[in-house]
């Protein structure tokens, strides 16, 4: 899977490991969750109002398009949350979600 975002600068940062839907990925320290996911994947989550998947829109906390699930814990606004080592992200609600 090729990522949507392309790194142009600031590539010398330390790696950070996380998982998306159970698969391991690597990001860089200082990435937002959105950057971390979209440099490896094409979208952040399944859509909730149509067939289109979602990949964020405004990147400044105004549109709320980029909320992403975690395996255990609250949802995150991907554009304004720094990625942390060991994050276990989900592109769809966990199965326990009603």
């Amino acid at each position, binding site marked *: 899977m090729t990522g*949507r*975002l*392309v*790194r*142009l*600068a*600031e*590539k*010398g*940062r330390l790696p950070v490991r996380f998982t998306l839907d159970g698969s391991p990925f690597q990001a860089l*320290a*200082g*990435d*937002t969750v959105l*950057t971390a996911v979209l*440099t490896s994947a*094409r*979208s*952040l989550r399944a*859509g909730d*109002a*149509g*067939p*289109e*998947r*979602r*990949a*964020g*829109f*405004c*990147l*400044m*906390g*105004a*549109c*709320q*398009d980029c*909320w992403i699930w975690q395996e255990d814990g*609250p949802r995150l*606004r991907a554009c*304004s949350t*720094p990625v942390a080592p060991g994050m276990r992200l989900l592109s769809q609600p966990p199965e326990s979600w009603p």
Partner: protein
Amino acid sequence: MTRVVIVGAGPAGIRAAETLAQAGLCPVVIDEGARAGGQIYRRPPEGFTRPPTSLYGSEAAKAVALHGCFDGLVAQGRIDHRPESSVVAIRDGVLHVLGPVGLLPCPFDRLILATGATDRLAPVPGWQAPGVFSLGAAQIALKAQGVALGRRIVLAGSGPLLTLVAAQLQAAGAGVAAVLDTAPLGAQARALPLLAARPVVTLRGLAMRARLGRLYRAGVTLERIEADGDGPTALYWRDARGRARETPCDAVALGWHLRSETHLAELAGARLVHDPLWSQWRPGADPMGRAGAGLYLAGDGLCLLGADGAEIAGRLAAIACLQDLGLPHPAPDLRRLRRLHRFATGLARAFPYPAAGVAALPDSAVICRCEGITAGALRESAAHGGAEANRVKSLSRGGMGRCQGRYCQIAVTEILAAATGIAPAEAGRMRAQAPARPLPVSACLADPAPSQTILPSGRR
């Protein structure tokens, strides 16, 4: 000591905080960013290494001065900075603030809102695809994260940011496939006498655009974004002479200048008026920014004057606050603001909102991208229940989604007005509702201890 709270730490909020601190007050500054600066002077996270000239270009010195001013005030304990915190509601003299430790009340005597602006959006059929972003997003991705939104990016819309983002992306080595401006060259040329109020800025913009060469096209019509499940594959458009064109791409960034962010101003009691020049609802205020009892507005959230205007307006709002408190204050300088107003009017005329194109969107076009509501559904709602924005919202769910109408309500207004033959102002405005940001139920269940109330540290 009087409790003054500032919301927003961009150029307006920073200068307001500085002015109050110089007068001996210790304001609380609530900001959503991790580091102060706002959007245009946004700072990358700690540990990033590009120098300010690379991040902010010709405006680097201003950015550095603002950041230094704010960091100094924080280090000296002269302001109470609350980063990563969002105001979700305002009621009875209390802000409800969602931050790293949960939901906290923040009582205030005077409130200065410096909430900035977002991109002003016009829907393009297919814009709900993943990989379609706002123009501001393209700039934030580059500035704050060092990334491009795709490998072949189409930038489309209008306004000064269109050329600026294109130039910044090119300089950083991103693949820009096209820069498509819906504003005709004629409208831009006719605005030049007004734009001459800031000759250096205007010439800089024109030079930047000249360097884009044939990538830049004026007077285009955007027809649709073709996408597969993965995201955009091409943007279909017509050039100024009406010829059909197609630009292959994997990302699209859209924006038509800016929209004042007025959600909190409205919750705080500001009166909003539809401004046809800007095709949006704007808060009413006196020249100093007074917008109600104890309420002051500054920066792009009040009037779209840009970063330089925001610094001035931030000072003015703080001076108005000091005047009303009967405290000593510096002399207000309204003169420079008049020149910036003239320039801003020029920008509004040069890069207008594409109202006619939005009104003519096909019934199948998704207008509210949060809820997937089409132009046809909006027109049908108006036919049933009348062309009033809130009623149409209730009936259709258009504007009821995650973004609370921030990115569709201008288009909804234009579509309702055109469908029923009324002026956009008559279609009304979707009322701002709390919470202004998503609020987890868990945050409401926890009762904050009185000690957790946000109070200015200088309170006596």
